[in-house]
Every structure is written in C-alpha cells, then in structure tokens.
C-alpha cells in the first residue's frame, strides 16, 4: 500500500510556486509524496512512488501530454521545413476567435512577452474540464497561443498541470523561436496553468458524477458488502466514495474503510474526527496496464470533490487488477 498526496496537495504546491514567483521547477515539488503519520507501512512502496514521481517530473515523456497536444506534437514533427512550420503555426493562430474587450484584463495578460497576449480560462463544471481562449497582436505568438489552446482545451485540470515547459522543444519550433519568444511561450504555459488552478479552486463543490449507481454492472459473484447507498437519506462520505468509485471504476471488489480514528491531530481536524481518513481497496479491470501512479490518479480524479473540500484529508489506496488478486491467492 502506498500513500499519495491528494490533488489539493499538488494544487497547493503549485500555488506556492506561483505566489512566491520562484523559478524552481514546480513539477518536481508536486511529485514529492507526503508521508502521513503511521508511515512505516509506506516504506518500500514510498520509494517506488518517489521513483515514479521523479521520472514523471522529468516530463519529456509524450505520454504525459494530453492526447490533443500529442497530436499537435506529431503534426509539427511531421513538418520539417522551417517555413512550413511557420505556416503550421499560423494555422493555429487563425483558429483563435477574438476575445471580448472586457476579457483583456491584466490578470489575463501574459507577462514577459514581446507581444500582447491574453489568455482566458474557464472551468466547465459539467464535465470537470478546462477550456481556453487566447488572443495576441503578433501572429507568430498568436500561433503559439492557439496551439496551446487547441491542445489544452477540454482537458482535465490534472492533465494541464502535468504539462512541462520543455514540451516546446518537442515541437521542433526551437529553431523558429527567438529567445524572447521562447520566454513568451513559457510564460503563456505558466499563465495557463496558474489560471487552471485558479478556476478549479474557485469552482463550486458541485461535481460530475451525480448519476445513479449502475448496480447492474457489478459482478454478482463477488462480495460487495457496502455498495448500495440509501438514495433518499443523508449520505456519509463513505457512501459517496463508494458510489463514485463504483461508477468510475466498475470494480469487481471494493472496500472503503473509515480509519480516521487511527490518525491523530492533523491540520484542520481534531483528534480522531471521523470521515477524515479512508482506506480504499479497489480491484478493477480498468487498472490493467496502468502504472501505480496512474491507478491512484484515477481514484483521486473520481474523488476530487471530497478531497477538495478538505474534509477528507487523505486516502490510503490499494489498487489491483483481478488477475493480480488471483495471482496473490
């Protein structure tokens, strides 16, 4: 079992980066897995998660970019002639719609850019994704902004935050970018990520996943003791967690335990206050072929709301595929 920092911790680290304006790479710091009290059980698996986190933070892996951005990278890599790359860039510029005057506010302006660039970000509560618009007075810069908008609109918060700046080198536009423009690109990405965090934090607690539990998808041969939440009555957090994990992962086995009494005096919660710490065991086919990190990420994504509110401090998660469980026994 490994412990992992919830989305809000990552968000908090990113906020620190932006507030103090430090130039240190935030992507490494967000990957440091926090050790909750009672850490002995996380020993070996913590080492594993830290290794995984540092390779994640190296950032050059294309698989860490959202699909649409990967597609854009492929397009640019397929275009080798500099002039054609320029044309491709202007193609993205042409796709951008003009911004309304009231959107051209200082908080939407990219700093450190030779041109005037505005980026607008919206969080869509219906699908939990972020959407962008941008405008610039310099066509080539507008192309870069358009590329980012195309690649990052409709993507999850987490995916946006995961994008590392050296991805610009993968476009092979380095040759076509003057140093100051490169800077502009970095600052555009930084603003995009900063605004993503902001809109995500500001969004109301209403999240996706209010659909009813698809009970028919549950494997009846397995023991599922806590699965049916009471639809009309007050729902405990435990029920909510169960419901969301069921909907999202269609597990063949699911255990959610409130282990709050084991944790003493964490920030924000008095000693042993209930429903602050959960242990979750999920066995699902959806984990097949996915790394530990990705599995945990799936779980955290589904439980964004509970974690964001801060009332659930942490989860300890065990994720397995049915094959792995079978192999164990």
């Amino acid at each position, binding site marked *: 079992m490994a412990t992992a920092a919830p989305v809000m911790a990552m968000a908090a680290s990113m906020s620190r980066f932006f507030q103090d304006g430090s130039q240190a790479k935030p992507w490494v710091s967000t990957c440091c897995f926090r050790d909750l009290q009672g850490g002995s059980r996380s020993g070996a698996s913590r080492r594993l998660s830290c290794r995984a986190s540092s390779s994640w933070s190296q950032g050059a892996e294309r698989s860490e970019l959202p699909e649409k951005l990967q597609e854009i990278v492929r397009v640019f890599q397929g275009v080798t002639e*500099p002039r054609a790359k320029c044309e491709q860039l202007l193609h993205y510029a042409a796709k951008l719609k003009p911004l309304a005057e009231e959107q051209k506010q200082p908080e939407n302006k990219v700093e450190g850019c*030779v041109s005037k660039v505005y980026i607008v970000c919206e969080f869509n509560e219906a699908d939990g994704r972020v959407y962008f618009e941008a405008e610039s007075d310099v*066509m080539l810069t507008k192309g870069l902004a358009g590329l980012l908008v195309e690649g990052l609109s409709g993507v999850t918060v987490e995916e946006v935050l995961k994008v590392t700046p050296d991805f610009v080198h993968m476009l092979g536009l380095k040759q076509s970018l*003057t140093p100051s423009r490169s800077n502009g690109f970095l600052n555009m990405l930084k603003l995009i990520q900063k605004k993503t965090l902001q809109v995500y934090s500001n969004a109301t607690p209403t999240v996706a996943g209010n659909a009813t539990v698809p009970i028919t998808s549950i494997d009846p041969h397995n023991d599922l003791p806590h699965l049916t939440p009471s639809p009309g009555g007050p729902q405990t957090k435990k029920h909510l967690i169960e419901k969301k994990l069921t909907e999202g992962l269609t597990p063949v086995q699911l255990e959610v335990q409130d282990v709050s009494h084991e944790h003493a005096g964490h920030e924000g919660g008095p000693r042993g206050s209930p429903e602050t710490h959960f242990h979750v065991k999920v066995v699902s086919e959806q984990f097949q072929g996915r790394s530990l990190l990705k599995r945990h990420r799936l779980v955290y994504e589904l439980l964004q709301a509970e974690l964001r509110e801060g009332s659930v401090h942490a989860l300890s998660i065990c994720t397995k595929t049915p094959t792995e469980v079978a192999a164990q026994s």
Partner: protein
Amino acid sequence: MQEVHGYKLVYLDNAATSQKPASVLKALRDYYEGYNANVHRGVHALSAKATDEYELARKKVADFINSPSDRDVVFTRNASEAINLVAYTWGLTNLKEGDEIVLSVAEHHSNLVPWQLVSQKTGAVLRFVDLTSEETLDLEQLKGLLNERTKLVSTFHVSNVLGCINPIADIVEWAHAVGAKVLVDACQSVPHMAVDVQALGADFLVASSHKMCGPTGMGFLWGKSEILESMPPFLGGGEMIVDVFLDRSTYASPPSRFEAGTPAIGEAIGLGAAVDYLNRIGMDRIHEYEMELSKYLYESLSKIPSVKIYGPPAGSNGERRASLCAFNVEGIHATDLSTFLDQQHGIAVRSGHHCTQPLHRYLGINASARASLYFYNTTDEVDTFINGLKDTIDFFSAFK
C-alpha cells in the same frame, strides 16, 4: 561571414550595437595578455604601460571630438551612465523647484529617466518639444519653450528612431541666450560623422563605445572644463580622491573626480583602438558613404506599398536622415516581421520600441521595426533586406 539559420547573416541592427574590427579585438587581447595591470596606482613597468595606454585612449577620444583638453573626457560605463553622472552631480546641485529642463518626446529612455529622477528630487519641471508633421523636432516650439527658468536643454543629436538630425549649434545658441546649458546625446552621431564639441558649443556631450566599433562597458562624458570643475563627485571611492581620512576626504580634479575605482582599462584602450580605426577610414568618408546608404535604404523602403517610415525624407543626398529607418507595415506586427526576417532570411533588424516608449505612444503605435546601417553595410545588403521584407509581407498577407 557568419551564418544564421542557414542563411548568410545580414546585420542591420547597428543602432543597437556595432560590430568590432580586428584591431579593436587585438587591442583588448594585447592589454589582457601583455600588460594587464591596474592604472594610476603602481610604479612598476606594467602599471606604467597600462596607465599610459589608458590615458592615451582618453586623448584619442578627446581629439576625436575636438575637445580643448583631454581632461574634459570622463570615461564611464556607457552613455546612460554619463547622463546620470550629469543629472546626479550638476543636476542636483544646480536645479531647484520651478527650474525647467527642456527635453523632447523622441528622447531615448536614457535621456529621459535620469531627468525624471532629478525632477522628483528637486522640483524642477520637465518640458517636452513635440514633432512637426515631417516627424522632426519642432524647433519653433523649442524656441518658444525657452525662458529665464530654463536651466538645461537635453536632446539627441541624431534620433535612433526618426533618423532626423538636430541643428545642435543653433539649439546651443538659443539655449545660451536664456542662460541654459545644453547636453547632447551623441550616441547616434559620434559613430557616423565628425563631431566637434567646440563648433557645437554644447556644455555636455555623451556617447557609447559599443556603437562606434568599440567594446561594451565603455562610454564617455565630455564637459566644458569649468563646468566639470564645479561638479561634486558622483561615485565615491579610490581614484577620485586626493587625501582620505576616516571622516572626510578631498577629491581629485576632473576627470579623475568622476572615475571611482578601477576603470574598464582594457575597454578604454579598445575604444582608443576603435577611434584609430575610424580615423584611418576618415569620419568624413564614413559620413559621405552613409548618406548614400541612407538615401538608398529610405528610397528602397519607400517603394514598398503599405510601408510607413518614421521621420523626415532623406533629402536629395541623404543628408537629412541617418542611415536608419524605423518603419511599420500596415496590418503586420513589427515582431512578426523581424522574427520572419531572422528565421527565413538571416536578416537582423530590431523590433519593439527601441527605448523610446513615449515616442511610440506619440506616434500612436505599439512597436516598430528598425533597420540601421553602418559603414560596413552595403547596398547589396539593403537589397537583400528589401527582398526579404517583400517575401515576409507576402507570407503574412496570405494568412489574413
């Protein structure tokens, strides 16, 4: 010749900084390799030689601008520092509330900001000369601004954006008539034409080494002897003193009074070598050639439709403009132009506000592109630039 992005480099950004001849680089190397030692301080052979060469460089600069004495040339880090030197010493001592400083809307930031600081500290008022419809300085307005409260007129000799040339001798005459002093920002003139401080009659003149084939980190202030003599120290420290006690010191005479600490010895010597180099060619010859280039550049650029060049026309012999053109192409941002020219043609021009934000605001534009030539550029290079520019315009027009 250098290659950029696979193209032969065409360097047209000389108003920003110039390229250096081999003799200047050799002078720097000879100093650092042969006689690198601190100046004025030691009695040993190396120090003596360094001091001699350093002071010889000062004499070369003084002769270059026809200064009555080499003691009137103060070495500084650059022209900006030279202006600050005047602002903080002469300015703070002599200006008081209600006194007026006449500048123009077209000044480089380095000839604006120091006076803003002085104005804030002393209560002196800044007055600004506007442009005519030809985009030269409105000299009638300037005359009208001069009155008994005017203490200083500080303006460019040649504008780094408009390319226009101010009649400094006339401005000095008008200013002196009301008891005002004149500081000349000669950054864009000293490298390109013979400048004679005595003929101009100015009280102060500043220029940068790196714009005249010399190294960076070096510039100078020239001032009239009696004015420099009256000015208090700028930076304090070694070299600018005579006697030092714990609680007080006495100060050296100019120019040493204004050269605290170890100077940029090698760089001063390099500037001296640059002056030698320019003299070998002859400033009049350089100026003649550049007038031709100026006319050629202006006319070639004017032929392209939708190009707007800032400043006055070149004149029948190119005598009304420096060999630079700041311009815009309708509908295409200057940054796009300069980026594409660099990427696709290896042509170096500048885009932005060229350290003249107020001027750009006055002209109603965000930015401009600027091609600025020096005596080592050719009409062929101008042709390459013009063709590249046409190609650039075609490229971006296709995307509109």
